[in-house]
């Protein structure tokens, strides 16, 4: 697993924020407060320990994310949530400031030097329990979420568009049935025609001249037994019609070496017949 590089911290950004938390996500102390989600948009583990979060541009080092916490190492394309409850003593993910539920808020995320701004966002005034986040994790466009997604990706699918369309436009299933049956028939008809024409073409191509046209024999017919004629006829029939399958049987002939010893000698294994 790759480790932290300072440069990769710059690919960490605000991803989703909920300011007015009435009935929403609770923290480890079963308390509700504003929460801020950061997203590691890179494909490496990023340690945000030592970086700063603030809601005041004049005080960029308002909250230093403590170093040495294993949880500040954000896995690739993953998230962490901070609670803006003003109680930093509750843990490393509890900020020492709160957000204004009645007005707009601007958040800043600074690099470890406390000067380099990595990301900032202004959150409009929203109704309680609505969050403001990027429509797709790490992307530029923001929107309001009625279904909040703390600690996970913002874009989730709660329905299948195709299914919804069928439910709306074809509630009786007639359209689906007709079109699907038509496709099944077309596919098998295609296969059927292919093999019909293939068989015709194949037979034409492989028809051999009749044996009687090419075989000249001086052997008088009355000199050959009936069984032999039957066997030859069967063989000619099979050859002309190409009906002889490739045989599956494989005979392996392997030479067996056996060193002679009286123990393996067959002669000693035989019981001698008693003499009367």
């Amino acid at each position: 697993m790759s480790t932290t590089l300072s440069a990769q911290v710059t690919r960490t950004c605000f991803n989703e924020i909920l300011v007015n938390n009435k009935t929403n996500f609770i923290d480890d102390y079963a308390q509700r407060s504003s929460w801020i989600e950061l997203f590691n948009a890179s494909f490496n583990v990023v340690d945000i320990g030592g970086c700063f979060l603030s809601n005041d541009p004049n005080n960029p080092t308002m909250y230093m994310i403590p170093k040495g916490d294993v949880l500040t190492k954000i896995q690739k394309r993953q998230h962490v949530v901070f609670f803006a409850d003003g109680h930093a003593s509750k843990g490393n993910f509890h900020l020492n400031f709160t957000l204004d539920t009645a007005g707009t808020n601007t958040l800043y995320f600074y690099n470890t030097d406390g000067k380099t701004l990595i990301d900032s966002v202004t959150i409009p005034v929203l109704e309680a329990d609505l969050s403001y986040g990027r429509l797709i994790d790490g992307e530029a466009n923001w929107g309001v979420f009625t279904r909040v997604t703390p600690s996970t990706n913002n874009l989730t699918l709660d329905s299948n568009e195709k299914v919804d369309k069928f439910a709306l436009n074809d509630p009786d299933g007639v359209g689906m049935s007709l079109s699907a049956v038509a496709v099944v028939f077309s596919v098998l008809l295609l296969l059927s025609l292919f093999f019909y024409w293939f068989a015709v073409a194949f037979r034409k191509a492989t028809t051999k001249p009749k044996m009687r046209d090419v075989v000249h024999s001086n052997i008088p017919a009355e000199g050959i037994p009936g069984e032999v004629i039957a066997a030859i006829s069967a063989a000619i029939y099979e050859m002309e019609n190409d009906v002889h399958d490739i045989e599956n049987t494989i005979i392996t002939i392997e030479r067996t070496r056996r060193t002679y010893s009286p123990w393996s000698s067959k002669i000693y294994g035989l019981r001698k017949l008693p003499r009367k």
Partner: protein
Amino acid sequence: MSDFIRFLGENLQEFLTYTGFANATSGHLVMILIGLVFIFLAIRFEFEPMLLIPIGFGMLIGNIPFKEVGLQLGIYEQGSVLNILYQGVMQGWYPPLIFLGIGAMTDFSALISNPKLMLIGAAAQIGIFGAYAIALQMGFDPSQAAAIGIIGGADGPTAIFLSSKLAPNLMGAIAVSAYSYMALVPVIQAPIMRLLTTKKERVIRMKAPRVVSSTEKIIFPIAGLLLTTFVVPSGLPLLGMLFFGNLLKESGVTRRLAETARGPLIDTITILLGLTVGASTQATQFLTVDSIKIFGLGALSFVIATMAGILFVKVFNLFLSKENKINPLIGNAGVSAVPDSARISQVVGLEYDPKNYLLMHAMGPNVAGVIGSAVAAGILLGFLG
């Protein structure tokens, strides 16, 4: 000493709360009873024993009551042995492996010698879409209705494959329903066949199928794959494996691979599939109103499929010359319950003409049904997946 006895007593009491007796519900007992019926049918009447015994015994395993305290016993508990084995069903990779084996054991000669029989296999798929339409009326959403409708294809692996993709929550009921009706093919199909055919039609003798050359047999899986999957790519997992297995068989140079596919491999997967599908019918998950509806719809889809196959042959015969007419008794074989439905054609045919052997003819639509149901599943997956 008294402390020790009290300690033992408390432990014994605790142990009793873990036993099946303490945790049994009427649902568990019902499911165990159904499992026993499956095993009985398999042994006594030999109804699809290869499937019903693993499924029936799986039902017993899945319905042994226990206290759910994270011991990782149940099939729905993450990380349990049964749960790990069940992933092949959930992720849908058992069915394509079963199709590989089916391909390696199926002789498509009957179909190649008389390609028009493929259309019977297509007609029987109407059962799938008939059940789909009825399921919609019963309140299922389109993806659930499609997963239920596929029972009419009479193909267990296909039903499992599609339901794992479209309606995983209904998969247990769909799989059990599909396999149950496949086992009951003789009971369901024979009366419909008699009902829809006249005595004259039942004694139609069909032309003996021509001998198919090995070249044609080799071309079949290759052309079959290309022609079907170019139209319905979503059927690729099933059709790809089916035709690949068949090429292993027909190429003549991969005998060992073909034997493994149609022998040890398919046997292993069948055991795992049957057992885990059976075990997935935990009473708490399985005994629902939806399951009962699914069983009803499953039966209906089988009936529609059988009727569609037979009626299609009757209509088709109107356009065929006298010597090329098809016996409608092979219409039922368009559902892909191989080879049971073809065997029913043979048995019913012999009842009316003891010298009319329909088995070889019925195998044509029967194997076409396998292709047809896989194509139908691909279409449904493409439309709704």
